[in-house]
């Protein structure tokens, strides 16, 4: 089996020509896909990449005509059932999938059997009321004449292929008993049940942690080679593209703006948008424009925050007659220091306790043990995690927080001015008459115009809202800012903008920042030092560059290895499967 593209181009198993898919809106229509043409060759991987709203998912869904309430209004999707790797073009009849009745038997005979699809949300893509076995067996029996016993055996075999441990018992599990990664594996098993020629994967790893993502991607690749499937992978992540793609199609505003072999696109992107996407992904592989050394002060200075032995367990009870205490240890003996003017990054996967740590420092969660001594502006020390930690409300002016979801963190019923002025008002930081001017100045600091003051948050995009959130945090001239995943809800190109804005503010104001992220790239870009968390424990802490170049803890190494890099050559070198000499 040779990896395409070979000298003789493989047959085109799918050819999308001038596809147009529209969605009805309350007023007018949303033209999600406008004239997309793509080809997918037998056995190859085509990545469709773009930011949210670019039409990439709708394009993928149009292939099997699963676009309700939208409608395919124009174009063709030619499917060649007999296309095989290595054969030339034009052999055998092609079926236009767009011409088939979306609910009719002819399209149904192709769905799942010839072309299979997996979706983004493994949590909700499986029926919660049926075991994964029932759902896989059904997929098998829909297209194959098998009795229940045979189908079950086949389902167990499929689960084994997607690396379920003990597939004989796992088959009777319900989705809620499985982790996100396991559910995505079950979905892949379902998709493989009839050995399709084409696998469409719509952001299959977006909802997963980075280490799980790496496992799923390598699973998809090994299965692809085993079955000779063509894979159409939809993603927003240039790193994933680099890792997976043979060819790549870049989408923007419902159109394909660039289409070609992955090496060529990465080496010499033709379109500015493509270049931006690649730039944004690569940006996070190096350090940002951090000020040299530690600004205000030096290494010898007393830390502004000194955390010692923080422990926190979320307790619940199960059972009624015999109550059993259950405890999830979110923080286990966490200790670190933050120097004045320093940015400390805390990186970890979901469930590692990093957000709990942020909330404990802000007094939202009570800790079971340990302390967090904060040096106030007047030099006095206060334990943030003590019961009386925030009894003095003026402390809230010195320590501020930036939230993850810019849509949730702003009160939709307040104007921008009211939102930003709220801390000014509460802490009486300026004259009533001066509030307007101060808010305007803060808005200018975050590169927003001052005349947006009387608008409500719904008038702004995600990036703009995050800027408003930053302005609110800066309003009190804080000395320590805790930023909890400030960029993870934003598209790639915006991420760097927001980070640069934060860096600029930090360098100018001499802030100390604790930046929390699941993305080791973000932390490396932003922070001098980073701490790696796993299951409530700090496993490693040190200078960012040092940790990224020479991790000491095996988990840190694993985390670093799992991050897809936005350079194809780099990825190929690391990947034994793709670089194999066969």
């Amino acid at each position: 089996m040779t990896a395409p593209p070979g000298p003789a181009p493989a047959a085109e198993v799918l050819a999308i020509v001038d596809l147009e898919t529209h969605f009805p809106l309350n007023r007018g229509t949303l033209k999600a896909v406008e004239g997309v043409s793509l080809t997918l060759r037998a056995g190859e991987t085509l990545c469709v990449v773009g930011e949210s709203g670019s039409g990439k998912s709708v394009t993928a869904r149009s292939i099997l005509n699963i676009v309700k309430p939208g409608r395919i209004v124009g174009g063709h999707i030619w499917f060649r059932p007999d296309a095989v790797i290595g054969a030339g073009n034009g052999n055998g009849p092609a079926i236009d999938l767009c011409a088939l009745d979306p609910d009719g038997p002819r399209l149904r005979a192709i769905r799942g059997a010839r072309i299979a699809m997996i979706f983004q949300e493994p949590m909700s893509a499986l029926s919660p009321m049926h075991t994964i076995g029932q759902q896989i067996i059904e997929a098998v029996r829909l297209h194959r004449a098998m009795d229940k016993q045979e189908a079950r055996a086949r389902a167990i075999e499929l689960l084994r292929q997607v690396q379920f441990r003990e597939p004989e018992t796992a088959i009777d599990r319900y989705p809620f008993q499985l982790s996100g990664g396991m559910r995505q594996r079950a979905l892949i098993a379902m998709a493989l049940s009839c050995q399709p020629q084409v696998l469409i994967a719509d952001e299959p790893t977006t909802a997963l942690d980075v280490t799980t993502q790496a496992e799923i991607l390598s699973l998809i690749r090994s299965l692809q080679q085993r079955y000779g499937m063509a894979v159409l992978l939809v993603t927003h992540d240039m790193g994933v593209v680099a890792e997976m793609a043979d060819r790549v199609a870049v989408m923007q505003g419902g159109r394909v703006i660039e289409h070609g072999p992955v090496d060529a696109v990465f080496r010499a992107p033709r379109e500015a948008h493509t270049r931006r996407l690649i730039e944004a992904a690569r940006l996070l592989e190096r350090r940002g424009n951090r000020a040299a050394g530690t600004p205000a002060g030096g290494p010898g200075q007393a830390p502004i925050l000194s955390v010692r032995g923080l422990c926190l367990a979320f307790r619940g009870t199960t059972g009624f007659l015999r109550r059993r205490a259950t405890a999830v240890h979110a923080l286990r003996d966490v200790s670190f220091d933050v120097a004045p003017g320093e940015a400390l990054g805390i990186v970890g996967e979901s469930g590692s306790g990093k957000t709990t740590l942020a909330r404990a420092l802000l007094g939202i969660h009570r800790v079971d043990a340990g302390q967090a001594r904060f040096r106030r502006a007047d030099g006095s020390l206060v334990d943030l995690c003590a019961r009386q930690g925030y009894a003095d409300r003026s402390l809230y002016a010195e320590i501020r927080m930036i939230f993850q979801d810019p849509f949730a963190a702003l009160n939709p019923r307040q104007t921008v001015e009211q939102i930003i002025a709220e801390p000014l008002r509460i802490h009486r930081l300026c004259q009533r008459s001066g509030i307007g001017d101060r808010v305007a100045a803060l808005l200018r600091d975050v590169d927003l115009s001052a005349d947006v003051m009387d608008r409500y948050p719904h008038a702004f995009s995600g990036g703009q809202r995050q800027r408003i959130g930053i302005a609110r945090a800066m309003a009190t001239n804080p000395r320590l800012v805790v930023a909890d995943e400030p960029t993870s809800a934003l598209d790639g190109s915006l991420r760097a903008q927001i980070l640069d804005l934060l860096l600029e503010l930090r360098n100018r104001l001499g802030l100390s920042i604790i930046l929390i992220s699941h993305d080791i790239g973000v932390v490396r870009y932003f922070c001098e030092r980073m701490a790696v968390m796993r299951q409530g424990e700090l496993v490693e802490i040190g200078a960012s560059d040092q940790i990224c170049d020479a991790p000491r803890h095996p988990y840190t190494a694993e985390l670093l290895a799992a991050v897809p890099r936005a350079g194809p050559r780099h990825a190929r070198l690391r990947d034994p499967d793709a670089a194999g000499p066969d």
Partner: protein
Amino acid sequence: MARYLARRLLLMAATMAALSIVCFAIIQLPPGDFLSARLAEMAGTGDTVDVANVAWLRAQYGLDEPFIVQYWLWISGVVGGDLGFSFELRMPVAEVIGERLGISLTVEILAIIVLWAIAVPVGVYSAVRQYSIGDMAATLFGFIGLAIPNFLLALLLMYLSYIAFGVTIGGLFSPEYVDARWSAGRLLDFLGHVWAPVLVIATGGAAQIIRILRANLLDELSRPYVDTARAKGMAEWRLILRYPVRVAMNPLVSTVGWLLPTIISSSIVTGIVLNLPTLSPILLRSLLAQDMHLAGGLILLIGVLTLLGTLLSDILLAWLDPRIRLG
């Protein structure tokens, strides 16, 4: 599951205790007690009053004791099967109830069956074919069920059948079968009568269930697992019935918990208007006559039956939902 059951049973026991206190409070609410009311009435009509008998009854029911003692006397009797004495009907409450309980339950169970038989297909159809003519009709039916109270529906039904056919519907048996033994003829006669109350009771509940099922199913139809099933190549109706309907039915089963009180309520009103030989007319009569032992006993019984029904539906739900069964 066993733990869940134990928890539900314990909760129900507590609820029943609270219910019994409320019922007894209702018995106690009217000023004076029923004996003095009865005595006044008898004196008014010139009946002779057996003083010794009255004193005995007074002692028996502890009428001169404080509330808590009276409650204890009453509740310990109730637990032992003695629901007290109906002064209006001059017979033990338990006997009055025993005569009519079977018919009451039969009518209610029939109504529930008819309700689901109407509501589920209509609800599924109107969600899957949203904004179709059938959906509009179902919505209209839903609003009518919402706005017309049971007594009015029963009244209208009686009026219409009187105008159209000259027949008075009401009761559950023709005169010749009222006291007859069960036979094929009596059964047919019963079925010829029972449709009216069953229809009236089922309508209000069905309207609610259709609304809920439609809303639930519309939510479920847009979930990713439906697309997963589509991508497998399943036929549309088959996948709808197998996945989203299955999921949407679940919260519905739990709504039976609060649907049941509504059904019982409407069966009471309907029973009164259509003058059925069920517990309902007796309840009204006892309340109007302030025959409070009978009324309190009836309300307690109705409440307890409702709680049992709710428990059954909860168990059914737990059994249907793996998240509860295994969680």
